[in-house]
């Protein structure tokens, strides 16, 4: 059965990974850009945060990670807005380069163990005591703050400009907004969020690994789409909160899969299938409707021939 420990761990991880879902909400939904920087930016966040924590600065590590993440987003944006690299390729290129950067940040080692390191979680535990659900509290607090700030930001002049950029680029240029600028700001913020997610995760599980971010863009999209499908109809607030809930549900699905003795290697395949199903649903529905109509039309013709 599912124990309390599993529920807590799913909620905690759900809140941490929700930051990636929010990042993709911004890049994929709002800006309409599939940002392949996500995988690398997540690992970058892990690496920076772990290295900083080992050096004795766990809190500063989170902010440094966000700064590093936004730098990665800036490179991707620069490639696509100024240097004419197609948007998906721009992300893939940055991602590839980040592999080396991430290794370098971890001192050219593929992982950073942090067993005895002080983290934001141990710090808060020291303040609140052992029997408090510190981890969940902190993870939820970070997710809530990030979510609130993101939504407030999207209501500002700059936020409106970013939303319009993804919604109707023609109109944006006619409204005196520089799309190169809005895309850059949007991708910087999205990757700062992704890096923050990695940063919190590294301190949560007390280790950073060069492969932690692999497949993160698909996992984030799966969470985002689960949330959208279940609760996503409505304003910006609903959509952003849906992304957080989607991420938590995704973690529960994973927890159940693990309980069912599915090997953890199978999880990425499951994520991939969830994303494919969710994104292709409109096309599949249309295809089915078309086949039905064709079948009905053929059937009617056949019937008519019998009558004659």
């Amino acid at each position: 059965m599912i124990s309390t420990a599993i529920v807590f761990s799913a909620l905690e991880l759900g809140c941490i990974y929700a930051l990636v879902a929010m990042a993709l909400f911004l890049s994929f939904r709002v800006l309409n850009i599939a940002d392949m920087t996500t995988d690398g930016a997540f690992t970058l966040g892990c690496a920076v945060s772990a290295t900083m924590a080992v050096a004795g600065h766990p809190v500063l590590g989170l902010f440094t990670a966000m700064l590093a993440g936004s730098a990665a987003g800036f490179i991707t944006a620069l490639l696509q807005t100024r240097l004419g690299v197609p948007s998906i390729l721009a992300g893939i290129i940055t991602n590839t380069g980040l592999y080396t950067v991430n290794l370098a940040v971890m001192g050219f080692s593929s992982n950073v163990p942090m067993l005895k390191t002080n983290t934001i979680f141990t710090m808060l535990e020291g303040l609140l005591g052992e029997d408090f659900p510190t981890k969940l509290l902190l993870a939820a607090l970070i997710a809530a703050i990030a979510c609130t700030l993101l939504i407030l930001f999207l209501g500002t002049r700059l936020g409106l400009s970013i939303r319009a950029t993804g919604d109707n680029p023609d109109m944006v240029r006619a409204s005196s907004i520089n799309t190169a600028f809005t895309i850059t700001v949007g991708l910087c913020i999205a990757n700062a969020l992704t890096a923050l997610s990695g940063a919190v995760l590294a301190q949560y599980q007390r280790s950073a690994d060069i492969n932690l971010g692999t497949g993160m863009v698909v996992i984030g999209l799966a969470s985002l789409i689960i949330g959208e499908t279940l609760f996503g109809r409505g304003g910006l607030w609903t959509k952003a909160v849906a992304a957080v809930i989607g991420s938590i549900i995704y973690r529960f699905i994973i927890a159940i899969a693990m309980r069912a003795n599915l090997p953890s290697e199978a999880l990425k395949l499951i994520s991939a299938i969830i994303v494919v199903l969710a994104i292709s649903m409109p096309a599949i529905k249309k295809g089915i409707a078309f086949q039905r109509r064709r079948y009905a039309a053929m059937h009617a013709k056949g019937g008519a021939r019998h009558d004659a």
Partner: protein
Amino acid sequence: MMLELNGVEKTFNPGTVNEKKALTGIDLKLEQGDFVTIVGSNGAGKSTLFNAIAGSFIPDAGSIVLDGQDITFQPDYRRSKTIGRLFQDPLKGTAPSMTIEENLALAYLRASGHTSPFSRITKAERELFRERLAALDLGLEDRMKHPVGLLSGGQRQALTLLMATLVTPKLLLLDEHTAALDPATADKVLELTKKIVAEHNITCLMITHNMHAALELGNRTLMMDAGRIVLDMGGTERAGMTVDDLLDRFAKGTGHILDNDRILLSKEQGVAD
């Protein structure tokens, strides 16, 4: 002088089999408050002229001066601070998943160049938007929180018109902005256009395929053919013109008859075709 084009030229795909001389030396001067209608055959370069003025591309030669400022090499988003533009496609001018209020706030950005990018829509702005929406008389002022995607084409085009003129532009470019609407709606949007342009004394260029509208609206009419202006009429010369006279003059000026299918279709109809 509000707008001045000097020898503006543009060739697309130069040196290839698809080479197209879209603009071949356009000279044009507009006074403040001029309302100029533009007619011309298919591919005459009317929309290309607008693209040049709005900055969608940089011309190969010539200069463009708006209100004393040379804007020849200014990027499009800078020019749109002072140039409003409407396209034939009503979907082009508004962001569908954002609310009416948010769309207007974006248009209003042009006026608020000095405020912080992190500021939000204020109460006073909301009141202004409501007031201006009410003037359209479409009931949109009660739907400010609705996404624009829910509006009809005509409502969206009226909203786009409001957005383009919310901050009075130095120049308004109307590219057959009523052509995709049904006749009644087109009429309504055209009425609104006349009203707003007159109210704010906006300098305006309007492409139309409706010859009656071309002669009736504004104070000056241009005819374009093969990338140049072949006819430029205003004042008394234009006042006495009929559509047939206009077509006649065109044929004499260019050596061939006007071959715009839509113009010919609309020849028999009234202004509100």
